[in-house]
């Protein structure tokens, strides 16, 4: 089902790793300067007209973000995820809003949640859901969610917890 499109991707682009074990889904990794071109090609020439989503994963250990453009072909009902690894430092990616106006919303979300820039994407710097967020983008793995929750949301009155080991000492061997 994918043989043709995958070999075309290999002919026209430097398609890297191909993965995916499900019958109707493949992932293909492409270099940063080819990803949007490949997405455009799949959209215009291979029937992957529907953008399912655009999302990111923070591979902090590698110093990279992985973006995935998930595309759907309504004719043969298959999906292709185009993956691209970009530098985590000053993370910037080419905007794809000329292909689908809706992708601007995903890009705006990624800008807010991961701090990935998409220059030229309409409204990309507007607040998405965080409204006035100035700190580290919260989906970055180095964002300390727990510390944030603790400092930002006061605890309800009457809360209190126990450390299991300390509690067991107090109950079972207080004087040792």
């Amino acid at each position: 089902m994918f043989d043709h499109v995958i070999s075309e991707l290999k002919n026209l682009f430097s398609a890297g790793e191909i993965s995916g074990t499900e019958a109707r889904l493949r992932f293909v990794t492409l270099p940063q300067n080819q990803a949007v071109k490949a997405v455009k090609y799949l959209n215009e020439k291979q029937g992957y007209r529907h953008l399912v989503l655009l999302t990111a994963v923070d591979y902090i250990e590698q110093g990279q973000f992985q973006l995935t453009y998930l595309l759907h072909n309504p004719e043969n009902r298959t999906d292709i995820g185009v993956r691209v690894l970009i530098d985590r430092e000053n993370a910037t990616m080419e905007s794809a809003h000329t292909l689908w106006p809706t992708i601007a919303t995903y890009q705006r979300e990624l800008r807010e949640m991961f701090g990935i820039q998409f220059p030229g994407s309409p409204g990309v710097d507007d607040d998405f859901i965080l409204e006035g967020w100035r700190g580290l983008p919260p989906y970055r793995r180095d964002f300390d969610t727990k510390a944030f929750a603790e400092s930002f949301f006061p605890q309800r009155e009457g809360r209190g917890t126990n450390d299991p080991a300390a509690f067991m000492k107090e109950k079972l061997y207080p004087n040792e």
Partner: protein
Amino acid sequence: MGTTKDILSPFLVWKQFFRKPVTIKEPLKRQGADRYRGFHINDIQECIGCGTCESICENQAIDLVAVAGIDTKSGDSGLRPKVDYGRCCWCALCVDVCTTGSLKLTNVFTWVDTDPDQFRYIPGVDAKPWDNATKGYKKAASLELYPLERIPMQHLHPEERHDSFIEIIKGFSKEEALREADRCVACGICTATCPAHMGIPEYIKAIREDNVEEGLRIMYETNPLPEICGRICTHKCETVCSVGHRGDPLSIRWLKRYLADQVPASAYASVLKSDSIEKNNRKVAIIGAGPAGLSAAYYLGMMGYQITVFEKLSAAGGMMRFGIPEYRLPYDQIDKDINYILSLGVEIKYGVSVGKDITLEQLEKEYDAVFAATGLHDGRSTRIPGTNHSGVYQSIELLRKITLGEPIEVAEKIVVIGGGNVAMDITRSLARMQRQKYGKVQLIATSLETEDIMPADREEVVEAREEGAIIYPGWGPREIIVENDRIKGLKVVQCLSVFDEQKRFSPKFDESNENFFEADMVVESIGQGANLSYIPASYFEQLEKDHRGRVLVDTLTFQTKLPWLFMGGDIIEGPDVIHGIANGHKAAKGIDQYLNANREEKQ
């Protein structure tokens, strides 16, 4: 630019009055999807209060709270998670990480109440309408946030070890230790069960951070014999490890050994800061250089006391050296731990038997306090007919001779009576010696207890079999048959039960079901008793005793009714190494308290 529509619009809204309202009333009666993440439920009998759900919750929505009616006991903190739905975001991480699998989310998601405090409750304790819900989010079987399986320990295969005394367990590499340490959820449930209450999650953390020196320091706070315990500890802690509820418990013992193995003996003094102890002029005598005596010597030595240990035998270690075979605990590792204790200035007088070479009265006069930790070294006999034959031995004597390198009889066919660890030690030692001497093993070990209740560690039984011994549990010895002054074998009858309803030792037999184990040598290994004959009668009278005549001490200080005399180790509690270590530590603190109080009085 205004239009008529704009001017009229406020009135147009009015027509909505006559429409059906969009807001609908509860109950909606709409079910959540099957795996919807709604309110928590917790199987309160399964939950052990490990708090891992609380630690993982990014929203700090969980508190561990005490619950009336749930007792704190070994392996269960008695605490239970209480959820604050003002904070919970239904991520279900708490469900995914729950060590027992007790915590789940139901698919119930509607709940109306006007009192915000109602939205904090203890699932499984505070009754809720969804308590019996079966649908909702459960951890997927394929998803584990930590590996359930242990990192396997490399060891010698039976044919590589069955005819020699070289150490079987190879120890973790750094990479293996880091991976094993990474399985620990750092809950601390194990600490209460360890008799010495070692800081287990703390030293495992030190392994994860690759800070072996910090790990060594943490271990020495509660245990000055880590090379030894890292090899032969009975590892009670592992029986309660949270991770063991759904997977293999952490290899706590091997991780301890890893830490001690990493730090060379030459670095101990600087790592453990024993190069700058301030000495005082008070003297404490310790009787017996076993685990309890050495532990007390270490902690008193660190406090600056002058310590003299009186040891009857020619080397220190007690049962650790003279009971446990070399293939489980090599002598150089015993020496590493003991030499470090000696480096604090502790003196051991070898070959001095208190009661014979020096009296307890003398020790009382010459020292400020005495700690007696003389252990259990007198083998008990079954006293069945035939036991007075010269071919019948006590396991503990044979093990001592093996350590000392003295020759012992190794017959072609041997029967060992006993099902504890010492019985397995002599079984496996003799099996090796039979193989060396005859090229094959003909050895039967038999115990009263059936296999499921044999007191020996499981791995000891398994490994003894791998090495060629035959284990026959569930038989009671009746007579050692002797013909023409030669042992023919052991007659046994089936043992039906060992304990009565009150859990008292009271074996019942089926006399009609007999068996006979051929042998020309019999070894008894049914336990050891204390020999307290070094305590003169005038002193012994003053000690408090239980109904069986065992000496009682203060459980916190190990002080006896004679204020200057402290007692601990196997003669008081156990028997095992780690209890001895814990006793020695407590006695050291007890002695320090006693001597400080004494000095204040004198001043």
